[in-house]
């Protein structure tokens, strides 16, 4: 019972934040599911920021702070709503299923089976490993949560260079959110991070399913959802209480919100109809990604760069009328900057320096070593087919085959946000490559224990972008130009 109030506050705060800029009314079920999934992640993001700021400023009355934040969000929502134009209603995707009805039934059944199997596995894993499986949960994320929770005025002691193996420079979205709930509970119960890990798995699936449902219809949504649910390592890693699945959630949220930003009203390509609020929410999602793991900082930079380069208005807009400088991504920057400042504060005033850039001379030697490039490339190629721990047939291979079979029907998207998303993911993958090049750790060790997780971080977004583009024997063509 002690957790009901903070859980409701968390979810409600996330919901009002998401709803602040929600200027489109999509089909009810998909709209609610999408907003619910986003609310969970955004709510946790708010909770973690509030807790961290309370710790930094010495504020102890957390419930008052939470209620204040909630009230501000609620007030902002009603204020903006009364001043906003009428919410535009989007027609459901005109879905036409070309295949036989038995195929539709099989797909629906397969989706249901995959969902039940994933829930079954995640629940049992959480019961068997309440403190997470593997080391990262108790050696990094929950350890930091305990320092934040138990440390009181001495919470900064947990971010000491004396325990470098705990990566005290890692951002604090998960630990601070967990500590926030523990504070309400008065106890550092392992059930809290276990439940959060469980919810992040299925919030990511819900986000993927609902967004594909809105843009393409139920068949691509079920295919995409089943693809993610049938990724064994995705379910396992979420249960381990690692931060990679929450990070994958925020990556996907960023890309979905970017896509929503460009969603025209009933095929009207008028750029004036785009809601800047979706772009702001995308910036917030990217910011929360950066607050979750250091890889999120890389993603944040790539998404800003990709949006700056590729989002400059439709070709229907005369060149002289297109935005100048970075004004076209101003809403994105508006929400990115505060979180970037928060992370900078944490990195500068709380955390010790990270280990990655600790030795510039050795870094240069490694960058110039061709053998390292070859090793990493080989591992990338190998892991591409193995990171999901699929049985017999790697899903990336399936997707490649599916693409080649349907490429004459696949329409390459001229949607600038789609291309920006692809570019951001590609740049992030390239960034990971560079990090392996310069890693201070043994290269094989580092690849072996992290590459799978890095690929999984990008996996839900990849599935989304794939099913947005390919024909599925059903579903509407992707919205947009």
């Amino acid at each position, binding site marked *: 019972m002690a957790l009901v109030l903070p859980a409701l506050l968390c979810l409600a705060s996330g919901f009002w934040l998401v709803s602040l800029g929600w200027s489109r009314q999509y089909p009810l079920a998909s709209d609610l599911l999408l907003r619910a999934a986003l609310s969970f992640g955004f709510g946790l993001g708010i909770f973690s920021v509030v807790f961290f700021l309370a710790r930094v400023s010495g504020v102890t009355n957390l419930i008052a702070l939470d209620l204040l934040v909630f009230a501000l969000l609620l007030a902002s929502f009603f204020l903006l709503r009364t001043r906003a134009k009428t919410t535009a209603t989007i027609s459901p995707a005109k879905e036409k299923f070309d295949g036989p009805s038995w195929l539709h039934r099989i797909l629906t059944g397969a989706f249901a089976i995959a969902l039940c199997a994933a829930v079954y596995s995640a629940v049992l894993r959480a*019961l068997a490993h309440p403190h997470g499986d593997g080391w990262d949960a108790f050696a990094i994320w929950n350890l930091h949560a305990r320092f934040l929770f138990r440390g009181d005025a001495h919470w900064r002691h947990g971010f000491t260079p004396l325990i470098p193996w705990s990566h005290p420079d890692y951002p604090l979205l998960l630990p601070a959110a967990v500590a926030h709930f523990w504070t309400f509970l008065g106890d550092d119960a392992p059930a809290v991070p276990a439940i959060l890990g469980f919810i992040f798995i299925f919030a990511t699936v819900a986000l993927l399913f609902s967004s594909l449902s809105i843009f393409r219809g139920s068949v691509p949504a079920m295919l995409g959802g089943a693809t993610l649910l049938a990724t064994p390592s995705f379910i396992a890693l979420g249960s381990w209480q690692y931060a990679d699945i929450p990070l994958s959630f925020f990556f996907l949220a960023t890309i979905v919100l970017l896509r929503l930003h460009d969603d025209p009203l009933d095929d009207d390509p008028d750029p004036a109809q785009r809601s800047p609020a979706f772009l702001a929410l995308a910036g917030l999602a990217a910011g929360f990604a950066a607050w979750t793991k250091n890889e999120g900082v890389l993603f944040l930079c790539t998404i800003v760069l990709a949006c700056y380069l590729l989002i400059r208005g439709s070709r229907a807009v005369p060149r002289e009328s297109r935005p100048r400088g970075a004004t076209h991504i101003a809403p994105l920057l508006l929400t990115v900057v505060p979180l970037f400042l928060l992370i900078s504060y944490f990195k500068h005033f709380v955390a010790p320096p990270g280990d990655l850039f600790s030795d510039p001379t050795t870094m240069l030697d490694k960058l110039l070593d061709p053998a390292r490039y070859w090793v990493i490339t080989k591992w990338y190629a190998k892991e591409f087919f193995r990171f999901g721990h699929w049985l017999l047939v790697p899903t990336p291979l399936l997707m490649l085959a599916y693409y080649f079979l349907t490429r004459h029907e696949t329409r390459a998207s001229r949607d600038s946000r789609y291309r920006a998303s692809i570019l951001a993911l590609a740049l992030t993958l390239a960034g990971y490559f560079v990090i392996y090049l310069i890693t201070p750790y043994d290269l094989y060790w580092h690849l072996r224990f992290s590459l799978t997780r890095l690929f999984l971080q990008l996996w839900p977004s990849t599935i989304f972008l794939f099913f947005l583009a390919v024909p599925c024997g059903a579903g509407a063509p992707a919205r947009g130009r």
Partner: protein
Amino acid sequence: MTIATLIFILCLLLSTVRIVTNAPNPTRLHTDNIAKRSDQRFAALRAALPSQGVVGYIGASGSAAVGDYYLTQYALVPLVVDYSPNHPLVIGNFPVSLPPTRLPSAHLQLVKDFGDGVLLFANRDAK
């Protein structure tokens, strides 16, 4: 298209089988020993230590040694546990109880044996 979609679905179901078979057996579900190796193991020790600060740590060698150290730190938060004997108070964490005559270091003086290999030492020479 129909065949491709059907094959896609069937291959996904294959991996779903792996998800189910790799899950813990519900009829023989046992909680792991993380709590036993951490919070439960060091509960009495934690009560005897200061509420904050830095303490040292020594432990046995072997494959489980690093995990044991990490779990000691996990249990004793908000104390910082430094893997070094150069602190006024040093925690000893060994698989079995060490008789007082077999101290791992001459500078360490046994303060209390909590049993089950959990020891608390004072380092006379630590600054």
